[in-house]
């Protein structure tokens, strides 16, 4: 039995979360930039081309200036996997540690981020001033490691999340197309759609959100061709949605989507977004 696992300390978790959130605020992931560059090259509408150009220029300025890509620096969503053999220092409280990291990142002196969270949402709606609390999803898993995956999810895209309970004979692709059409441009297309299919209502939405965290590889998929039902569905949805002609900033767009299937019934949810790819709008479809 291996008992040499390092002890996980508060200081390390807090610093890692804070550093990650700062990093995310001013750097787009490379796959997003490449996808956007490809979209720019293929885009035919001048207005949409201009919008993509502004987004790419902005991205570079933010990487150089270390300032946020978007004024909406998001709600923090954390996916945490805690290994059951992991060891923690005395008095461990992983949620409190994560929130402390959020607090530090959002009140950073050189790069303050926007505090967008209110307490008492159905009542006073007072800004919490440090962007806490984060939304934290935790799983207990085998092993001795702790993994934390973070997203800073923008409100524009989050507001577009949709869930539906479909019948087995319903057409998923058509449902998604109708949802995307109604979503309009508030989620800053071009962006990423995350789709969750299956399980239960809340599982579908969670899967959709998680699917946004995966690499953007629609172009590669198209080149190599679909090898299973999910990949077929991805391509069908991409074609169907791109044909809507909605576009960059509502003027024309292409987007990459990922979709996970899971179970037998049909909840479907959807999220998307572009300013910060982790802020993608999830359309989660749970099937």
């Amino acid at each position, binding site marked *: 039995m291996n008992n040499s696992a390092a002890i996980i300390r508060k200081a390390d978790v807090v610093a890692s979360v804070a550093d990650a959130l700062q990093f995310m605020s001013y750097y787009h992931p490379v796959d997003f930039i490449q996808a956007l560059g490809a979209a720019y090259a293929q885009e035919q509408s001048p207005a949409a081309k201009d919008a993509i150009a502004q987004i790419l220029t902005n991205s570079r300025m933010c990487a150089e200036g270390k300032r*946020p890509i978007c004024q*909406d620096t998001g709600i923090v969503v954390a996916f945490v996997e805690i290994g059951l053999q992991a060891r923690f220092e005395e008095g461990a409280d992983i949620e409190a540690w994560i929130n402390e990291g959020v607090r530090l990142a959002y009140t950073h002196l050189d790069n303050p981020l926007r505090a967008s969270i209110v307490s008492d949402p159905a009542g006073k709606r007072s800004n919490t001033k440090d962007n806490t609390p984060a939304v934290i999803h935790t799983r207990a898993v085998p092993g001795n490691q702790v993994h934390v995956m973070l997203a800073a999810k923008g409100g*524009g895209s989050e507001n577009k999340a949709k869930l539906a309970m479909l019948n087995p004979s319903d057409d998923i692709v058509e449902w998604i197309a109708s949802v995307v059409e109604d979503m309009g*441009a508030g989620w800053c297309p071009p962006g990423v759609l995350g789709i969750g299919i299956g399980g239960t209502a809340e599982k579908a939405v969670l899967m959709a959100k998680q699917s946004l965290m995966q690499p953007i590889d629609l*172009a590669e998929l198209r080149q190599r061709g679909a090898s299973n039902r999910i990949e077929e569905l991805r391509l069908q949805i991409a074609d169907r949605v791109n044909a809507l002609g909605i576009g960059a*900033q509502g*003027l024309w767009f292409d987007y990459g989507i990922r979709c996970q299937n899971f179970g037998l019934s049909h909840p479907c949810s959807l999220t998307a977004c572009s300013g910060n790819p982790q802020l993608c709008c999830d359309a989660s479809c749970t099937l």
Partner: protein
Amino acid sequence: MDKLTREDIQTWQPGETILLSGKLLTGRDAAHKKIAELFAQGQSLPAGVDFTNRFIYYVGPVDPVGDEAVGPAGPTTSTRMDKFTEMMLSKTGLLGMVGKAERGPEAIQAIQRHRSVYLIAVGGAAYLVSKAIKSAKVLAFPELGMEAIYEFEVQDMPVTVAVDVQGNSVHQTGPQQWRNIKVSL
């Protein structure tokens, strides 16, 4: 913008790109709600806040750092302010609005009725947009934090006309034009 009149904006065409210079007022959900409450109580706008012949920019900016006038300040989704549009256009002398995304039918009708315009800035280019903002000060509702009413002085802020005085919306005509053009990525 400081000398813009209603007559000037009558000729602006949907899809036209414009560089704005001059003073803008800002506000989003919470500020509009407060204004609605003031009017409902028979009160007027807070001292120092006058929308007559001005544009409003729907934004909740990041706080500035160093020598920035304001941190990243891209537009927020205008559709959420649709229900306040008639009030703003009829009661405050507001000339036009800047935001992102499409307006709904309620807002488009109000824009038509008052011969106003709606302009869009690019969401996702917030830092770039903030470079056009030369000064920023809070005019009202400081307790709302980023949702306060600010006055921004801008120079060459790039925007596109999204809804003209006749209610033509690029978010309707754009997709119609580009629908079904096949793109493979």
